[in-house]
């Protein structure tokens, strides 16, 4: 290990630079891994589109089947972008590597909004709560709530991370209990309507929102990628960022808004994926030996895309649809996570 560093150091000594990778070798390894992961993702996505298609290509019903499968792949790409970029960003601005936006109750907020709509205004209100306006309204509410919570907690004078995370977890749990309590009070038929709305999945994605959801996700993701330089500084912590001329409060509010937009769009479209972001981020820090978000983001997306397409492919075609993808993601994720920790000995 030390010899390797010394050797790499010598290599670098010819041109001493503070680039994102400490050696050419590590940079090459990064690109190879990135390309391999993207290939896995693309192959799995292609497999999802064409493998085991029950209708022949020349049949008139081929197109609807292929389109339905394509929607699912698009939903996976949206989920991969949203979860990978928002989780890495959130962990960098809060300087922690455990808590993710999902764990802090973004989804709980989503289900609480819908449940309370039904609970207080009746089934008709929930049924009417569709269309672009409702979608944007819902995202607006979620962004507002997130800002109230995290903005207040993160910008206090002695912004205490542990306190914020604790309060966030408590609020998330509280919202979850509140909405499950309301769900117990409504009639079974109303519950049915609510459930079809809440338990979105990539196969049951709300495709009518694609035309606005896709641009929103892409714009938010691009804005965060353009913000990578500031994120690098913010990941050094509040004190160091301040002394380097990055005013901490406004500098974290902006990415926080984008994170809540990404999370709420993804949740509204395909429902909650609680441990997905955590898994992506953890693997990304192992796979990309750099601090630089310009390289962390692509790796995070490639990992997220490969995980979700592979998981769905396995569920649909190996386990013949007998499993739930979140179970697969959490099973494989947990195994890899344990493997990494045991091998490295550190988190």
């Amino acid at each position, binding site marked *: 290990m030390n010899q390797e*560093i010394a050797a790499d150091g010598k290599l670098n000594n010819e041109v001493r630079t503070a680039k994102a990778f400490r050696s050419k070798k590590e940079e090459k390894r990064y690109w190879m891994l990135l390309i391999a992961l993207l290939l896995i993702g693309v192959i799995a996505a292609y497999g999802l589109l064409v493998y085991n298609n029950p209708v022949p290509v020349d049949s008139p019903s081929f197109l609807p089947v292929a389109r339905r499968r394509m929607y699912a792949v698009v939903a996976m790409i949206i989920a991969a972008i949203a979860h990978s970029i928002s989780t890495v960003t959130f962990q960098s601005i809060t*300087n922690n590597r455990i808590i993710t936006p999902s764990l802090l109750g973004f989804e709980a907020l989503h289900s609480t909004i819908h449940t309370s709509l039904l609970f207080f205004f009746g089934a008709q209100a929930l049924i009417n709560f569709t269309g672009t306006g409702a979608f944007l309204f819902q995202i607006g509410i979620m962004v507002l709530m997130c800002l109230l919570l995290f903005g207040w907690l993160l910008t206090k004078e002695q912004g205490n991370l542990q306190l914020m995370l604790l309060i966030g977890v408590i609020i998330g749990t509280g919202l979850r209990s509140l909405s499950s309590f309301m769900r117990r009070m409504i009639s079974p038929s109303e519950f049915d309507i609510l459930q079809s709305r809440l338990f979105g999945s990539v196969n049951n994605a709300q495709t009518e929102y694609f035309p606005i959801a896709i641009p929103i996700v892409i714009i938010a993701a691009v804005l965060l990628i353009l913000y990578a330089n500031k994120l*690098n500084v913010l990941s050094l912590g509040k*004190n160091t960022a*301040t*002394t*380097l001329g990055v005013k901490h409060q406004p500098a974290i509010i902006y990415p926080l808004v984008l994170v809540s937009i990404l999370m709420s769009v993804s949740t509204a479209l395909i429902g909650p994926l609680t441990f997905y972001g955590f898994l992506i981020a953890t693997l990304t820090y192992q796979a990309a030996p750099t601090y630089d978000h310009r390289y962390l983001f692509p790796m995070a997306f490639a990992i997220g895309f490969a995980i979700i397409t592979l998981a769905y492919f396995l569920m649909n075609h190996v386990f013949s649809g007998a499993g739930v993808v979140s179970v697969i993601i959490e099973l494989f994720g947990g195994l890899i996570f344990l493997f990494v920790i045991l091998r490295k000995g550190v988190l």
Partner: protein
Amino acid sequence: MINIRNAVKKYDEVDIGPLNIRIPKAGLTSLIGPNGAGKSTMLLMIGRLLNMDAGQIAVAEMDISKSKSEDLAKVLTILRQENHFVTRLTVRQLVGFGRFPYSKGRLNKSDETIISKYIDFLQLTDLENRYLDELSGGQRQRAYVAMVLSQETEYVLLDEPLNNLDVSRSVQMMGYLKQAANEFGRTIVTVLHDINFAARYSDRICAMKDGGIAAFGTVEEIMDAKILTDIFETKIDILSGPYGPLAIY
């Protein structure tokens, strides 16, 4: 010059201030005093890591609460004790962040030259491609000092830079700071706990007590048995040693 006028920080139990002091440009100024005297509070307020409740602080004629953070980062830098460190960050990359106020993340050739200069200055050349978590506490401390120096600011504030360093590392660190003040013309303000380190390496000493400034002057003026006994409420004698006054306690 650092000009502090009536700066006040209110804590639940005690108030620090009102502080009034003018710390001149150039040289090394040490802040000494008992625990809870307000040394770190004053330093953090100058370094804008702590908001003051009243008063004004100007560094090089710039009001720190009105000037833009980006502009201040070219004039003033502060290093604290506890720093959150990123795992996959090398020494050289960390020192590179010191150039952020100028480069905004895109390092050019002259930035790289400056980075090399301070890495070499703090004798981190062989360690420059190590990750921070592969270093000892003292080496990491040096890496952070290299970062704030590479920011090339007129004013450099350090909060207890000798914490957790043994005697030889402390002497080494003070040597670097003294040299940075003399060779690079920096104005260094540092919180120190050891009176004799302050006496040996400072140009000026500011002594604080009970949230106020008790005395401010040259080393000879402050290294006075009566003043120090008063400030620390402990019997302190002064001997004249080969390198200047020595406190015996």
